[in-house]
């Protein structure tokens, strides 16, 4: 039983491949939204203060990405427990992560005002059901079809550059936040 459970835990390299895509998506969204805010920040925050806001944002993105990674790995483990071939894990988990992330950011974008609160709530189950209905079969499809899997893995490989870049920035951000709060 123990072997059965352990055999289905993905390797670090595979997890890093998934994490690279998650980091790319999560940090890109944060930076995208920051461009809405940047003009107004420039009106009332100094350059140092704006840099500090970005430091908090990048740290939050780090937390976001780790939480999403944990959720996706767990979901994959539970939902696809019966699939023994762990070479498929990476592409499958990436598709799940992309589905979750897309659903989340599209909803945040469409229902951004708090006058949209009623619609945000009433449509929540429907949106996540659709995300699951589309995402899970696609996850299986992309993991089973060699060319699709190759495409996803290639994409993951290219985003690994962002992984190291953003993680380095997050490290600097952590230092900035620590200095601001401990000094």
């Amino acid at each position, binding site marked *: 039983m123990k072997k059965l459970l352990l055999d289905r835990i993905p390797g670090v390299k595979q997890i890093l491949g998934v994490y690279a895509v998650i980091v790319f998506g999560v940090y890109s969204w944060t930076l995208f939204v*920051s461009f809405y805010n940047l003009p107004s920040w420039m009106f009332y925050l100094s350059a140092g203060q704006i840099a500090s806001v970005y430091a908090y944002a990048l740290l939050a993105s780090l937390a*976001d990405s780790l939480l999403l990674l944990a959720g996706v790995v767990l979901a994959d483990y539970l939902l696809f427990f019966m699939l023994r071939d762990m070479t498929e894990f990476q592409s499958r988990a990436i598709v799940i992560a992309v589905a979750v992330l897309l659903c989340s950011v599209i909803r945040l974008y469409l229902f951004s005002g708090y006058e949209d609160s009623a619609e945000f709530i009433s449509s929540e189950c429907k949106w996540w059901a659709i995300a699951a209905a589309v995402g899970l079969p696609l996850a299986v499809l992309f993991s089973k079809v060699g060319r699709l899997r190759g495409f996803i893995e290639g994409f993951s490989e290219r985003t690994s550059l962002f992984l190291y870049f953003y993680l380095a920035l997050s490290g600097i951000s952590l230092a900035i936040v620590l200095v601001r709060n401990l000094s």
Partner: protein
Amino acid sequence: MAGVTLAGVAASKKLSAITAGSDSRPNIIVIVMDTLSARHMSLHGYPRPTTPNMDAFAERSTVYNNHYSCGNFTTTGTASMLTGMLPWKHRAINYGGLVLPEFAHCNPFSLLGSEYQRFGFAQNAWADHLLGQYPRDIDRFLSPLAYSLTAENPALGLFDNDRAISSIAVNDFLLSMDGQENRPAASSVFGYLNRSRIFRQTAAQVSAEYPRGVPELMGGAPFLNEEVYDGVYAELLQLASQPKPYFAYIHLFSPHDPYNPRHDYRKLFNDDFAPPVKPVHPFSYGFTEEYVATRRVLYDRLIAQVDDEFGRLVSRLDEESVLDNSYLILTSDHGELFERGFLGHGAHFMYESVLRIPLLVHSPGQTKREDVHSLTSNIDLLPTLLSFAGRDPAPELDGRILPGFGGETDDDRPIISLIARENSAFAPVEKAVFSMRRRSHKLIVYLNYEMPGRNFELYNLESDPEELNDLSSKDVKTASAMKDEFFAYLNEANKRYSRK
């Protein structure tokens, strides 16, 4: 931060009486009711009986009948009150903006110093940003969510030493909780979860008691005024039990919109009150009179509810003898406007309803009413608070000690307010709307705005309190003199930012 519970202090009857005498300096309690227009208070002649409890409180307070905010939205109005400076000096002029770091030390918390136990609570996130510029000078600093129906995020407490910037980053940007211009949350996971949690909590509050839902903070976090005022009472009792004198700044969100009064207040003011119809302003949203009237009555009802809560608070403080050795100051940061095709605040409107705010100062043991009719500004509050504590005002302050507390009446004093949210805080003020009140006249200046047919308005508020008759082209002499004076002040203020 956890709130103080009523049960926890229930045993402390007559707390202030017990502790009084350990330090004879009076306590100072400032209660700011966000968005409370003096022109909607029966205390100041509004036809609807919106504020009977404040009217009663006024009978033992000093009442300022012509008190103005320096701004028409929270950031500017609150920053002026806290710094004692005009907006073109402190520069918190943008939505959610901050006071220039060089002036951040000009605030009651820092200037009163550690001899006072200092308590800060601002339900309005933008006011919280301003207090967050000096978190180390506030001994107990509550989160805007304290005493609300939404649990505070404990992670945010980690950043209390950098409250202003962390709040802009986390609340305004990552969680998009400031309600500003409908920007999506930048945090795709926590931002989403937070939004879902708060919207669900808000929706769950719709009930027979609150058929339109309960009041909400910026970003939609629900709260009940009943619970918030209970919390304020518990905090004040806790402060009264300390040996030190205390300063409490309490910035409460209601009657800010959304106007969601409790069910029993929804029966009020079903009357035929109809204020004069005013010309639609070119910058308005073109709301119909009927729609504006439906919103006005909700606002008035919410004021009535808040007034009852205030009355309840004062009577409980009286029972505990807290006011025997305390100044209690009631004011607002700006008003609210329901006219000219517009409703709300923070837009390009500098009419009386949005600038005239209440100011009532109850001195320790005061039993009689005093009225001050001369023009005063909310920049006068800080120097007055400092005088209560026996401190000299800082030289940087523009405000003066209020008449009635040692300040002199100056009938020639100009009272200036502005909105410059589209202007950089680091540049000369070149795009803004200003108001300058001097004696009975008020000049409104639209600087670098395209106003069809006019860039100035002039009103004589003694003969035309509703600002219906624009005199800018009829009383050219007065208009010209006021313009010259105003631009002299503006040029002086802009000097340090002038481009070379």
